[in-house]
């Protein structure tokens, strides 16, 4: 492998690690934002994917459980389409946390744009 190829591979690996790190927080925000209205897991995943936030089952379901454990989500089991499904929605605490996170997200976006020399909106 040439030096140029090695550098490109290292850059790709570094980018992938940083992208995943950046995406992790954004996923939580997207899930919380979407659960302002009630969804069951599979429908939530479809809604997120349809809106451009790709997420696989193995990431989404453990994340939902974690957020529920933290008190940000409420869930109930209900029979729909002759199968029991678990429906999630934001709890009162979750709504408050989402509001604060969204404000933080917008502030960060503005700051990064400013640092990057982009025109302020």
């Amino acid at each position: 492998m040439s030096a140029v190829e090695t550098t490109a591979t290292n850059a790709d690996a570094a980018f992938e690690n940083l992208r995943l790190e950046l995406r992790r927080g954004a996923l939580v925000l997207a899930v919380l934002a979407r659960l302002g209205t009630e969804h069951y897991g599979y429908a939530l995943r479809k809604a997120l994917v349809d809106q451009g936030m790709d997420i696989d089952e193995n990431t989404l379901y453990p994340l939902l459980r974690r957020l529920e454990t933290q008190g940000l989500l409420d869930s109930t089991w209900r029979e729909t389409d002759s199968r029991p499904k678990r429906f999630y929605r934001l709890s009162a605490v979750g709504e408050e946390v989402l509001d604060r996170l969204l404000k933080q997200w917008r502030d960060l976006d503005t700051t990064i744009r400013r640092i990057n020399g982009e025109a302020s909106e």
Partner: protein
Amino acid sequence: MTLVERYVRAVRDFLPRGQQDDITNELADSIQSRFEDEEVVRGRPLTEDEQVAILRSLGHPMAVAARYRGDDRSVRFGGQLIGPELFPTYLTVLRINLAITLIIGAVSLIVGNSIWSAIAGVVVPFVIQFTIVTLLFIWVDRRWLRDPDGWDPRTVNSMGPDIDVSTLDGLAVQLIGKQHTRAVAITTSVLEIGLLALALTFWLAIGLPEQIGFVEPGPGWADVWLAATVVILFALAIPVVNLFRPTWTRFRVAGHALTDIASIAILAVSLMLGSWVVLVDPASASAEQQDLVELINTIIRISVAFTLVLTAINAALEIRRLVRIGRPRSEAAAVSNVKDT
């Protein structure tokens, strides 16, 4: 049992006990919903191969369950070598090995009176075991968990009553979902080679020392050591042969029966000979030293007797299996998997 039920049952085994029902119900619904969506898109029911492809895309049941455990620890050196799915098991195996090694080290310290012999008795075997165990887990991680074709949702099994995970064959079936009923699975042979190599390492590390502090090996140890080494080497040769000749199932069962019979003979001779450690100079030994030697011999006597009983039971089972196996089948039939049995 449907493919989804089979898959979800396999995931269930690796989940925390209190959350099994909750998680598997949700997972089953999610998979079923995905199947239904795909059927709407295609305008027809999914074929078995299409269902298998979707389940494979979800990942090995062990990998799926690991995400719920929330334990992200892994072994990394540059890239990931042992993922979070296997890491807890890897850690448990290392801890057991370390505990056994420390017990041997403690005994060496008591009877050897030398801190250096005890350290050498702990460090060297543990480094060897650490290397073997780590390499084995890296291989398992690559072979089964990272390779989507390394397991089969059609035959992956739950650790239910139908699978005996106490045997290496059962464990291999659980992990890769393939069962070679008339051939020895490569996985089984590799696991056996690893475990027997560990046993041999321990045995050779203990060796046949001339003198350890104020004691030396007694006849129960010294007179059978060489024979026992030969039996361990023979036992190690069986999976090595099966690795290259997996259809030699009669050889394997006969080999195991022979190993058990030889082990029974050695253990019986060892029990009759009696003393495993003796005082180098009984005349000048203190009362404490005599008591310690007596205690060590009593512990070993109980262990040998217990092992003798277990080996006799195992030998009876192996001989019964040998009788049942009958004539060997043809080479072509031998490599069929569970699907056609």
